[in-house]
């Protein structure tokens, strides 16, 4: 039996596979395809203090082995989440983690404090890296001082596992990760989407309503893997790797690069059963290669 448990501070994952925020709804949407109890965790859709309608349609453009989105954090707000969604999903036999976003520090803090009170949510993922909202969002994630401020402020009110999600749209991601660590993050997750753009040559217009959007999917994997490697060499807290993971082999590569766990995003759209398959595939890899504990793979890159 391969040991697959990953212990992070205050957060135990039964295996390293989680699903990425904004790509897995609230888990319910995938329940017909995946046994949710076979996942290490589910990170639900970005939640903000107040209701947000998100950006206008069109919000999506297909790109070579990837997609752009400018959803813009459409959600009904943290109170609606607590009252209506949380009761439905709190008893999943997996970690339910809430992705928290805001347009200013007070909003982040207020939303995080409300979620701190939910018994069955062991962690939040602080989204300081969403490229699709005008205020806040990515702005916090691209400077050390921005990330420090918001992480510190949330740290004061949030007492469980605090994961900070990093933007790849920066010159030096290791520096940003160190700032999050210094400000009290329990882990960092990366990458959020790369800022991109699509144009329709026929109409001469941008494809997306917001002109630019976030790039995700298989195409970003090489960049994500590089950043996970750079960050995991720099920080002491665990790193959660994501960006283009579409198979168990991809997941193993992120573990080897230094990720303690991984998230699957866009690949859920291509194969709604992929998260369960990756969890199984990691075990198969370990069996084949005589790895007794998945933790042995973490940072196991041979240079």
């Amino acid at each position, binding site marked *: 039996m391969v040991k697959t448990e990953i212990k992070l501070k205050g957060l135990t994952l039964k295996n390293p596979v989680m699903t990425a925020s904004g790509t897995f709804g609230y888990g319910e949407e995938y329940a*017909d395809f995946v046994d949710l109890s076979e996942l290490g965790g589910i990170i639900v859709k970005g939640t903000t203090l107040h209701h947000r309608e998100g950006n206008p349609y069109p919000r999506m453009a297909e790109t070579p082995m990837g*997609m752009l*989105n400018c959803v813009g954090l459409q959600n009904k707000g943290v109170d609606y989440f607590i009252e209506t969604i949380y009761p439905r999903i709190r008893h999943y036999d997996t970690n339910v983690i809430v992705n928290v976003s805001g347009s200013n520090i007070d909003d982040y803090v207020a939303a995080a404090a409300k979620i701190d009170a939910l018994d069955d949510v062991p962690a939040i993922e602080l989204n300081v890296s969403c490229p699709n909202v005008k205020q806040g969002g990515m702005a916090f994630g691209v400077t050390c001082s921005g990330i420090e401020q918001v992480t510190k402020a949330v740290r004061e009110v949030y007492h469980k596992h605090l994961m900070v999600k990093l933007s790849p749209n920066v010159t030096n991601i290791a520096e940003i990760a160190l700032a999050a660590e210094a400000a009290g993050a329990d882990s960092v997750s990366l990458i959020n989407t790369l800022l991109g753009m699509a144009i329709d040559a026929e109409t001469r217009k941008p494809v997306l309503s917001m002109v630019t959007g976030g790039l995700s999917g298989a195409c970003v994997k090489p960049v994500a893997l590089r950043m996970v490697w750079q960050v995991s060499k720099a920080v002491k807290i665990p790193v959660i790797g994501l960006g283009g993971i579409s198979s168990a082999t991809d997941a193993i590569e992120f573990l080897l690069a230094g990720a303690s766990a991984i998230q699957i995003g866009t690949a859920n759209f291509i194969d709604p059963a992929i998260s369960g398959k990756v969890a199984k595939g990691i075990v198969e890899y370990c069996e084949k290669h005589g790895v007794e504990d998945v933790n042995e793979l973490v940072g196991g890159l041979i240079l």
Partner: protein
Amino acid sequence: MKSRYLRLYVYMKAIIDFIIVEKQSFQRAALLKLKSATQLPEIAGGQFANVRVDGCDKAYLRRPISIHDVDYHNNTIDLLIQEKHEGTKKLCALPVGAKLNVVLPLGNGFTMPEKDDNILLVGGGIGIAPLLYFAKTIRKDARPCVSTGVHFLLGGRTQDDLMLLDRFRNEGDVFITTNDGSMGEKGFVTEHSLWNTKKINKIYACGPMPMMKAVAKVAREKGIWCEVSLENQMACGIGACLCCVENTKEGNLCVCKEGPVFNIERLLW
């Protein structure tokens, strides 16, 4: 009523590896019959499938395609696909014997009519696809078929757009318009003479946006109940990504999950 509850229970979504067992090619479209080795989930008229396009580097995401027909006995579904760009071209070029990975059934279908309804199913271009299976479900519903039968009003630019008319004629009366007059009455579906002669109290429409908007306009003017099936761009097809939203009176709703069928009263157009 039992069938209603049954339905809610069985709309379980599945990922199925189908095999193409029959194929009929048209001008720039194809009809594919897909066979599943396992039992099909129950499917409502107007629901759709999300089809993976293997071996096409221009189609990373799945392609949403309406369910054109279902045969529970043989575990087959029919898809009627029009070539648009690379993804649908690749699908239309697939040979018999090819494998097709499909997620289904997705979305909410059309609302079943009541016994006394006078219904009209309006299809434009490839939008005719979901109407066939919907008509079949009406006729096969536990309750007796709507008393006046099913009427189709199908529109195309030319005769070539109007495929598989025999299939439709098997399920009801078929009225036709073409823009160039090459078949049926010349003009748009909304200009067909039946609007003046037939009694209609429910419209179900699927087709290009301008056509659906025109139908909705007619419906509003005449005060007729009307459902339309939207075709917003999708990424996940199951309500997870929020990419496919339609801005409605209730705010942004996912077409893949709350739709694709909407009563026009909910829409902002």
